[in-house]
């Protein structure tokens, strides 16, 4: 079942669209689920489908199409490292290596304590700051060096 908070947010979102086109709110609805639970389980997709009057498979198509939806638990903090060309030229390989050293996990994995998850990301549109990573798709960190990564992790550890 979708929580009260989620349905309230979806209802607010639905006001942006014509009443007979509830499915327009599907991407936002999936985002709200992920914000609350950290990932989107098939049951949540079915709930979103029921709430918006959509076919379950149609929700699944959207959820699997967009990279930023987590289809499995990705830890409390999902670190998404851009591996596209600009970041790669500026050393995203080193970023990943350092994160691997610090967290002991590779791409698509979660630390044993469930705190950190590591994902590969697509271009974040801020190549001037390459290499880049995002925390939970919300906070963007650029011009990464080993020291800066340690600093980001230290801040997250404190939370």
């Amino acid at each position, binding site marked *: 079942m979708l929580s009260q908070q989620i349905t309230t947010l979806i209802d607010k979102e639905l006001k942006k669209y014509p009443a007979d086109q509830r499915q327009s709110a599907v991407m936002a609805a999936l985002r709200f689920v992920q914000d609350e639970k950290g990932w989107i389980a*098939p049951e949540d997709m079915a709930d979103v489908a029921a709430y918006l009057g959509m*076919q379950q*498979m149609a929700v*699944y*198509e959207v959820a699997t*199409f967009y990279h930023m939806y987590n289809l499995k638990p990705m830890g409390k903090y999902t670190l998404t490292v851009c591996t596209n060309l600009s970041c790669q030229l500026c050393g995203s390989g080193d970023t990943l290596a350092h994160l691997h050293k610090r967290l002991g996990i590779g791409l698509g994995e979660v630390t044993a304590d469930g705190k950190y998850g590591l994902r590969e990301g697509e271009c974040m549109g801020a190549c001037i700051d390459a290499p880049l990573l995002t925390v939970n798709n919300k906070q963007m960190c650029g011009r990464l060096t080993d020291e800066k990564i340690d600093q980001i992790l230290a801040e997250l550890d404190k939370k």
Partner: protein
Amino acid sequence: MINIEIDGKQIQTENGATIIEAAHQAGITIPHFCYHKKLSIAANCRMCLVQVEKAPKPLPACATPVAEGMKVFTHSEQAVTAQKGVMEFLLVNHPLDCPICDQGGECMLQDLSVGYGGGHSRYHEEKRTVLGKDLGPLVAAEEMSRCINCTRCVRFAQEIAGQMELGQAFRGEHAEIMSFVSGTVNSELSGNMIDLCPVGALTSKPFRYKARSWELSRRRSVSAHDSLGSGLAVQTKNNRVLRVLPIENEDINECWLSDKDRFAYEGLNTSERLTSPMIKKDGTWQEVEWQAALEFAANGLRHIANGAGAEQIGALATANSTLEELYLLQKLMRGIGSQNVDFRLRQSDFSADTKQQGAPWLGMSIADIGKADRFLIVGSFLRKDHPLLAARIRKAVKKGAQANIVHSVDDDLLMKVAGKAIVAPDALVETLMQISKALTAEKQGQSASGEAAAIAKSLASGKSVAVLLGNFAQQHPQAAQLQALVQQIAALSNGKFGFLGEAANSVGGYLAQATPGAKGLNASAMLSSPRKAYVLLNVEAELDCANPQQAMAALQAADLVIAMSAYKHHATEYADVLLPIAPFTETSGTFVSSEGRVQSFKGAVKPLGEARPAWKVLRVLGNLLKVEGFDQDTSEAVRDEALKGVDVTARLNNAIGGVEAKAVAATKGLQRVSDVPIYATDAVVRRSAPLQATTDAAIPQAWLHSDELKKLGVQAGAAVKVSQGQGSVRLFAAADDKLPGGVVRVAAGHAATAALGAMFGTITVERA
């Protein structure tokens, strides 16, 4: 109309058409995969790229509308280069397994790669692999690497079947066709995805690795499993039916086929087939020669006719027997002096027989149904009883038509329903009376509120109204009243009304005169006042009759039961002689569809073992009993005799007079609502293993509203004892909150419920 030019050919086409449609009209082929005339445009395969004058780059013909003066080149250098480029990309990841692929020989990709593919591949990297999926017992999706992601299957499920059971998940190179959380595809139309798949990704599971397409002979036939009269291409090899495909007819089945029609053939050659005549001697069954069996049957009938009297003989046939069989059966009965013959085994109200002006039929053509803009569907398990008609109505509803439902269950029709009244069976008459009253009021400008008024309002606003009575309404104990009321409603809304026929020959039976004469007994009376002898044609009494308890009691008490059947079944308990007859694929015959279309077909294969076409068996019985007029040489001669002087269109008439509709007092206790599950309708379907493995063929449950369950103190999922008359069965209780109160839904036509009584009436449910 606008003028365009394709490959130098001047073409006039409708404004709004696409280039590919215009080209097909003019007989010009444009290669394509994802385009299908019945589905929405996806334009994702890019195979149909063509050159258009003044366009800077090739355009997809399937998604480009024509414009006045447009010049299109489908085979210019630019077009062919583009098409070859697309083909090269499609083949990059396509496996080279054509030699073992079921689609080989009838594959669009294979065919088009001959024209547009290269002789060798420039791609030497690893091909992408996509894991196979389990989509259930009918559609095989084992080799999804073959998929070219045209999304025809997805669009079919969404647009025609009404339920998006497949989708394209993930993106780009990772895109794959799959179901939600590994679910199976449960649509009753799922087999059409196999036809639509342009490659070998979705293939037929029952047909898998049985034969190569070029080894099969193709025979034209007509569906025996519902009343639509779908055209079948029965494909055979070594005298066995190996596959059934649709024959396209825009006015009947379009290019579709229901799974029931497509996969029923798997029930043709089971070990349960009766392959030689048998006589019960001293309590044991013995195989005998035809001559002995026929003489036994003839002597038995003669003995009863001479002794107890011919009126002590009754003949029952199912409505999926051919016109010829039904005609000869009634001719035989009338020849020996009995008027007791009937084919309407699940009907319980026969009072319309004397009040009805003609043979009940659809009341309109099937094509007309697609054109109606308001529907009132009374007492029909529409999706399961008439899958393709449901699809046609679904299409009409998508275009703006309104569907209204009056029924005792509220199954999801996968379409928008404008108004509905879901009431217990004993309130159906009253509901229709209310609608009729509301319609009269609506005409006088008064509007009321409530379910009935909403339906009346919807009907009154229509230009072309179709009122349809389903199987449930025809089997209802007040069927004649329902018919009269529907006639009234149709008249008030200037519409047409008709019957969604139950079986292949529900209309044909009337034309064959397989109904009792004035002095004869109908199907129900023949069993309620038992006869001494019965002749059964295709009948499985405990599954095909309105009241199995009564039917079995009558047959068990009879002195003589002659069972003509394609299968060994429970008849061994009550019959005295079993005559093996041929199912529809093994005999020539005729079905008259619910719209009155008379369609004859030939046998696709020879009868199995000693089985013989039933019309021949009846002819010999007629000869042995020395009845005149049994010297036909062919089934065509029988058909011509049966329809001689019969103006079919004039015979079809739903008008009924002299019936007064009267609401009945509410029944005390629970009422039974019974459907005949989609894969329990006739003997062949019941034995088709793949159909029986689908979710639609699950063992029936006792469905109740959760309030009723609470009253009974039963949890959903718990076992309950369901009793009716002298019999009871153990079923699992299930909750369906869309059911009205006071009813329990228990399917008929299934072995699990065959010990129960009538399909309508009171029934008790208690904790087991």
